[in-house]
C-alpha cells in the first residue's frame, strides 16, 4: 500500500439526509487524514447542512427509505422520523462520530474548504449571514470548476 495518488477530492452534497451528510463528512475527513486535499460544495438541500439554524435538524428519511426496513406507513407516523434519527445519532455518539456542527468545525480546521452554491442560495433566498462562519465562500458552477485546477482531482456527487 503506497501513498494515495489522488491529489484532491471534491464532493458535491445536494441532500440533507443524515446518511448522505455523514457519508460525505467521513469520506472528506478520511481524505485529509491521508494527506489528500478536499473541498465540499453544498447545493440544493445540502445547503441546510451549513445553515446556522437548519443544521440542527438534520435527520434520516423514514419514508421511502428501503434501507430502514420499516413500512412507509409506519415511517410516516408522527414522531417516527425524530425517534429513528435520535437513535441513530446515539449510536454514532457511541462510536465517537461528532454531531454535524462539531464535524463541520473539525473539517474546516483540517483544511477542508466549504463552499455554498450561489444559485441554490438565490433559490432558497439565503444570505451569507444565514450560513455558518466556517463557510469559505459562495461559488458559481464556473467558480467550482476552477477548483479542478490540476490532474488527479476527483468529483463525487452525493
Amino acid at each position, binding site marked *: *500500500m503506497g501513498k494515495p495518488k489522488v491529489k484532491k477530492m471534491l464532493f458535491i452534497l445536494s441532500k440533507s439526509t443524515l446518511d448522505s451528510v455523514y457519508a460525505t463528512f*467521513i469520506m472528506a*475527513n*478520511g481524505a*485529509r*487524514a*491521508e*494527506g489528500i486535499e478536499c473541498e465540499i460544495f453544498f447545493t440544493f438541500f445540502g445547503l441546510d447542512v451549513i445553515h446556522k439554524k437548519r443544521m440542527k435538524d438534520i435527520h434520516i428519511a423514514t419514508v421511502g427509505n428501503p434501507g430502514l426496513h420499516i413500512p412507509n406507513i409506519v415511517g410516516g407516523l408522527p414522531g417516527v422520523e425524530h425517534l429513528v434519527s435520535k437513535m441513530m445519532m446515539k449510536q454514532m455518539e457511541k*462510536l*465517537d*462520530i*461528532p454531531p454535524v456542527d*462539531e464535524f463541520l468545525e*473539525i473539517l474546516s*480546521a*483540517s*483544511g477542508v474548504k466549504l463552499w455554498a452554491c450561489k444559485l441554490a442560495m438565490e433559490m432558497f433566498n439565503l444570505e451569507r449571514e444565514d450560513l455558518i462562519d466556517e463557510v469559505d465562500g459562495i461559488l458559481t458552477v464556473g467558480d467550482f470548476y476552477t477548483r479542478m485546477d490540476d490532474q488527479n482531482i476527483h468529483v463525487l456527487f452525493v
Partner: protein
Amino acid sequence: MEKVLAGQTVQVDQEGYLIDPNQWNEEIARAIAAEEGIELTPRHMAVVKWIRETALSGKPLSIRTVKKSGVVDIKEFYQLFPGGPLKLSTKIAGVSKPKSCL
C-alpha cells in the same frame, strides 16, 4: 522485518511502524520523523508523547480525540504533521497505525 534506526535495530511492519512500542525512544522518533521529512521540535514531541500515552492506554485515536486532547488543536496538528497527521504521529510515536475510519 528488522530495521536500523538511530543506530539501534528495531522490528517494524511493512509500513515502517514499530511492532514493539517498548523499543521506542526519542532518538528513534527523530529518525522516523526525519524519514518522513519532519524535524521534531518540542511541540512535535509534546504531541508525540500524548499520542503515545493515549494509544498505549488502549484509547482509540481519532481526529476528535485530538480535538479534545488539550495538547494540540486540529489546525496545529495538520501543520506539525502535514500529509496525514494521525498516520505520521503514530508512526513517530512508535505505536500502531490507527484502524478507525475517523
